[in-house]
């Protein structure tokens, strides 16, 4: 396309783009505020679900605990 068309396209992309960004994020501001209001009013905050650590987690924990007890033991025998 020739340069004037290109400039026109660029301009319209700019307007459209910034417009969309602002409109979308403004909608998001209102949606988020509403959501927060509703949640804080109607949802009693429950204690966070205990983390389900997978086998790996367990394995790490076991390893950590092993090392710990070893350390404590070594320390006690100082």
């Amino acid at each position, binding site marked *: 396309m020739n340069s004037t068309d290109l400039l026109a*396209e660029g301009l319209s992309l700019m307007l*459209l*783009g910034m417009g969309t960004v602002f409109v*979308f*994020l403004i909608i998001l*501001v209102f949606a988020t505020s509403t*959501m927060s209001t509703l*949640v*804080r009013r109607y949802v009693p905050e429950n204690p966070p679900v205990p983390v389900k650590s997978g086998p*790996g987690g367990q394995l790490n924990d076991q390893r950590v605990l092993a090392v710990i007890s070893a350390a404590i033991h070594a320390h006690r025998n100082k």
Partner: protein
Amino acid sequence: MDSLIQLYRDSGFYQLEAGQAVMVLVGLLLIFLAIRKGFEPLLLLPIGVGAVLVNVPGAGFLAAPIMDAGGHLASPGGILYYIYEAGIATGMFPLVIFMGVGAMTDFGPLLANPRTLLLGAAAQFGIFSTVMGAIALSSLGLMDFSLADAAAIGIIGGADGPTAIFVASRLAPDLLGAIAVAAYSYMALVPLIQPPIMRWLTTEAERKIVMQQLRTVSRTEKIMFPLLLLILVALFLPSAAPLLGMFCFGNLMRESGVVERLSDTAQNALINITTIFLGLGVGSKLSSGAFLNAETLGILVLGVIAFSIGTASGVLMAKLMNRFSGHPINPLIGAAGVSAVPMAARVANKVGLEANPQNFLLMHAMGPNVAGVIGSAVAAGVMISYVSGIGG
């Protein structure tokens, strides 16, 4: 002996062109910046290595596989070819990394003060003004950028790596290398680029503004936010759904608390593996032909302009909001709207402390900071759909 000649012909000396030599040096420079200057090393180190490898003459890192008549593999392709085609041309790597970023993102500060989303919106002006800049250079005949090229260059102003790579891979694959390098380099340079602009546009008094303590955000709100964002994207902005959808997925894995092991993997093993290959793949676009030309110079110049305008827009938006709002916003946090998480937020905090050593803005700046990620993803969606819509 033919074989000696063969080997000599294979050797770099015989084949090395000046351009390739220069690009090897460029790769080494990126590696130096990554290691010694700490420039986004997670990306620039692999990118630098990829740049060196792809410019080794005769090594065929980018060679496509050759099939014989029977459709059997006659000669395998190069590793960088497979990495680029499988991970970047498809868009998989940037999307997987975006998922991991989502799993690392805490929207708490944003939820505590949703207005700061507007700062993330304003900062995207850097993107579109840069698009205009690139188009102007074309119109003046100084460069030759198509609308698609201009859009891909503008996204550098988004200050978000995976978004930039995703857009460039779709709109201007030839410029991908330069765009990615510019994006990550300027993200690393945020502490140098932003402060002067921030000081220039704000008064001492404004920089001293103390913002009110952020409220605590409940786990339920944190779970609802990615779902809300996902639904709004589905309704209003399908073209941004790939990026924001994966981002929300990652964040939902994080906040739900019921898939801890998936969240861990998305934040560690998976994003690390993808980063290694993404870096190599991006580096593979740093061939002399694609990089050593005036366009790259233009991209680098436009990139820093994009960052500067984005920073300024964020700051000015904050000042504008203070006109209409009771709770004053420290305009410095507006600069964090460019994203470049968490660097830009740290910069806002640092500049704030210079004005008032008691005033810690970090948490306040994290809101616009993550808002900037959403903002640039939205901008990316608009540009991709617009350009492909008119056949860029």
